[in-house]
């Protein structure tokens, strides 16, 4: 049913996957997956709001596929994301770019970092506008053992002055 809801609706959805770490006051921070899409910035915005509310560290992570020249832009997106965090007065925020195919690399990163929550856009920079859920969100919701926030809301960092 979770997958059917995600495919048929466009509302922010938090899927509880980690029964041992449900409360936001528990262990682990928040991983925000960034690919430069408006929904990945929407995921970041919610990660920052949750971070402020609960004192959670936010780790912004972008995955760069060496075979995709356009992924060189991710360094710039990371700078923009950190600027968004600074403008919003977020607390502890860090960012990194990792190598690999995003759905796989981010899933592995999340598994290693053991966050309370991973925030990811419902679809990504390669979305073709058919309303389908993106491959990174799909992978994380299916395979991660951590709680996953699938963000449908969008944020344009330019409009924020970042």
């Amino acid at each position: 049913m979770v997958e059917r809801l995600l495919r048929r609706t466009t509302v922010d959805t938090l899927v509880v996957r980690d029964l041992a770490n449900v409360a936001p006051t528990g262990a682990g921070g928040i991983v925000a997956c960034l690919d430069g899409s408006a929904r990945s910035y929407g995921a970041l915005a919610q990660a920052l709001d949750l971070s402020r509310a609960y004192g959670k560290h936010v780790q912004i992570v972008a995955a760069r596929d060496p075979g995709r020249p356009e992924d060189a832009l991710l360094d710039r997106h990371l700078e923009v994301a950190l600027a968004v965090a600074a403008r919003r007065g977020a607390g502890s925020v860090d960012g990194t770019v990792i190598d690999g195919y995003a759905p796989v690399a981010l899933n592995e990163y999340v598994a290693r970092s053991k966050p309370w929550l991973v925030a990811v856009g419902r679809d990504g920079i390669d979305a073709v506008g058919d309303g389908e859920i993106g491959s990174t969100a799909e992978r994380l919701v299916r395979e991660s053992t951590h709680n996953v926030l699938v963000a449908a809301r969008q944020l344009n960092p330019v409009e924020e002055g970042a």
Partner: protein
Amino acid sequence: MYQSIYLPVDNSDYSNAAAELAVLLGKQFGAKVIGSHVYAAKLHDVRFKQMEFTLPDEYREEEELEKQRRIHDALIARGLQLISDSYLDTISKRAEAAGVTLERKLFDGKNFVALVDDIHASSYDLVVLGALGQGALRDSQLG
């Protein structure tokens, strides 16, 4: 940040964990939580009618069939409503203890269809739900 948090429940372990988190978020952000459950009384009704041809002859007279259908419908619908209410009662107690406003919603139908329709007809800021429900099998990854 969040003003209305939608919480589909089925009394599974994951659903109960989702309820815990939804109430905590509701308390933190001053949001209303909308607890929702879908039961399938009409589906039982359809299944009963599909199996009527297997009944003994004395029960297959139209008048007797109508009587049996009414009894079956009343028992199933009322029973499922009571079970559904008990699911929401649990959430209600948790919300009340946290000082969070809870709205209750019950639907009769196919679960994801009713939930999607309700989400489309409403303006929830966030849906919180468990990864696996009552129907999960041992190797299930996602409900």
